[in-house]
């Protein structure tokens, strides 16, 4: 059973290898990519089913026992994130099937996407900080290549900003790792969580905490390190933008939560205040910058910054309820945000441009898509009974519990700001009548239905998360308890005896 943990890494890798041979056959490649993603969902759900009963699956790679070798650890947090990521993967590849004949390098994009999924799965499953760095790099390099496939000047500029800033964050991560290893002598999460005598108490280890926070903050696009996101995401083709928006920044938030509950527990430290203020600033600035944009995908990109602020707010409040709310928010956001990007892609194809001023009339011409948009938009803005409502409610009630009144007020106001942006997109792209320049841009055709299948799948999952929120919240509470009291994690990874 421990060997199950390798499957979420093997499936996308083998898929990518097969897809590299499909160069030139875009449609076949897109179909194979879909099948690989469905297989990944099956693997992820088997893992989740095993872990749901309270077991933490640990695989010591190559037989080296835990703190000396690298371990893959599947606890409930990892498996939940893996499952959500695989659902995002299926929806995005279904949409790529619809989009594929129009993009430049079909088979290679699908292959690189599968490699990116391998990096994401590895980042969720690893139990070692340096291994996390390696999986981040796998994910990042695949996304670099995917993002630089554009042809316009601005897309190259965006790609460079993305590449340079993310490489800088990787180097900050490496620096923090070096200092941490020098202090503690181990990079295994479970082992690091035992060394509370050293961490926070020496200057190099506190410095390492700040460096790791900066590195993950750049990757998660927290203010003030978020400017690479809106410069680059809207230049990617729609299905890629959806994959990036739904997955990459959430992996950064996952790393933040893992590091600052297991390795550097945040309770009462000065870094907790820093993360709190950075989260509040991200929420406000993200939503204000989103309100000024007139490009569908750019509004969504700035929105991601604001939503990431919500998730790290849950981390910064650092109570059981707050971290549970943060995990719930991450899961809800992965689904809803990806859906919005895919809808932006549909709008671009149907109306011929991403500019909100030039779009229009989607409610009149495509009723079903408009209803799916309403599901996602209401989910992001926080209306019941969709998942976003419960995510926001849990976060706000945990803010009340710890008496963080400023955070409460900011979160409520930013919710109004989110609703404003969603209404603007609705009014511009869906409600107002369309003034078409060229008649040929009207969308349709045989593969159009598959694209809607991807969006409909995500909308269905969003509704299901809302209706089944008590079950999901129970899981998130268990995740939060396991993170804040890492005894079961440590025992699972390190065994009964503790070394050094």
């Amino acid at each position, binding site marked *: 059973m421990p060997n199950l943990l390798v499957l979420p890494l093997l499936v996308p890798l083998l898929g990518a290898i097969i897809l590299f041979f499909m160069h030139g056959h875009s449609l076949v490649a897109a179909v194979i990519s879909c099948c690989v993603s469905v297989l990944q969902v099956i693997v992820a759900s088997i893992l989740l089913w095993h872990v749901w009963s309270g077991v933490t699956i640990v695989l010591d790679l190559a037989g080296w026992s835990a703190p000396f070798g690298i371990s893959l650890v599947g606890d409930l947090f990892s498996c939940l994130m893996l499952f959500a990521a695989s659902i995002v993967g299926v929806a995005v590849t279904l949409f790529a099937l619809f989009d594929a004949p129009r993009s430049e390098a079909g088979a290679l994009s699908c292959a690189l996407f599968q490699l990116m999924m391998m990096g994401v799965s590895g980042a969720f499953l690893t139990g070692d900080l*340096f291994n996390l*760095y*390696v999986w981040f*790099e796998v994910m990042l*390099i695949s996304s*670099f*290549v995917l993002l*630089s496939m554009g*042809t316009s*000047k*601005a897309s*190259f*500029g*965006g*790609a*460079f900003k993305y*590449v*340079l800033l993310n*490489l*800088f964050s*990787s*180097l900050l991560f*490496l*620096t923090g*790792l*070096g*200092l941490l*290893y*020098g202090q503690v*002598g181990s990079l295994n999460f479970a082992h690091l969580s035992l060394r509370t005598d050293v961490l926070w108490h020496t200057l*190099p280890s506190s410095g390492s905490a700040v460096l790791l926070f900066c590195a993950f903050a750049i990757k998660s696009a927290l203010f003030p390190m978020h400017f690479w996101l809106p*410069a680059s995401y809207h230049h990617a083709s729609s299905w890629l933008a959806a994959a990036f928006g739904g997955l990459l920044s959430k992996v950064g938030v996952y790393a933040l939560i893992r590091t600052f509950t297991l390795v550097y527990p945040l309770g009462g430290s000065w870094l907790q205040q820093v993360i709190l203020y950075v989260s509040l600033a991200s929420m406000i600035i993200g939503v204000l910058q989103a309100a000024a944009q007139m490009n569908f995908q750019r509004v969504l990109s700035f929105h991601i910054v604001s939503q990431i602020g919500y998730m790290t707010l849950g981390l910064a409040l650092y109570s059981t309820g707050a971290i549970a709310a943060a995990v719930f928010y991450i899961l809800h956001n992965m689904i809803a945000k990806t859906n919005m990007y895919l809808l932006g892609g549909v709008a671009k194809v149907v109306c011929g441009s991403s500019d909100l001023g030039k779009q229009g009339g989607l409610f009149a011409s495509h009723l079903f898509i408009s209803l799916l948009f309403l599901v996602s938009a209401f989910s992001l803005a926080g209306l019941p009974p969709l998942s976003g409502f419960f995510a926001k409610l849990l976060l706000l009630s945990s803010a009340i519990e710890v008496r963080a009144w400023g955070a409460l007020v900011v979160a409520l106001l930013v919710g109004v700001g989110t609703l404003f942006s969603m209404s603007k997109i609705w009014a511009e792209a869906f409600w107002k009548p369309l003034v078409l320049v060229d008649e040929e841009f009207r969308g349709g055709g045989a593969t159009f239905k598959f694209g809607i299948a991807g969006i409909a799948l995500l909308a269905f999952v969003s509704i299901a998360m809302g209706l089944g929120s008590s079950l999901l919240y129970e899981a998130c509470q268990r995740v939060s308890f396991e993170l804040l009291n890492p005894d079961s994690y440590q025992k699972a990874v390190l065994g009964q005896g503790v070394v050094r």
Partner: protein
Amino acid sequence: MAISGLIGVLYAAGIFLLLRRSLIKATMGILLLGHAANLLILVAAGYMPGVPVIRPGDSVLQEISPDPLPQALILTAIVIGLGVGAFLIALIYRTALCFGGDDLDSLRDEE
């Protein structure tokens, strides 16, 4: 102590170059920062100048010997840096082919 000074100089030079307008200089900055981070791992964790991990003639690791793990970490980081640097150079080449020049300020959204 000299090597710590060298690491500091490399970090400073790397960050300075990263802030330049020319893309080639930014790539050089990333490469220098990579070198600096690798040297930092070496110095911070088990730096013993002149002492090999296994001395010639020994069959067993001695009591006082340098830690081999940071050297493995550095190797991985060097290889990743190599791949990334190669990609960056290819991207700059393609930019120069399509648009001429490598000025980052000229590649922006027309707002």
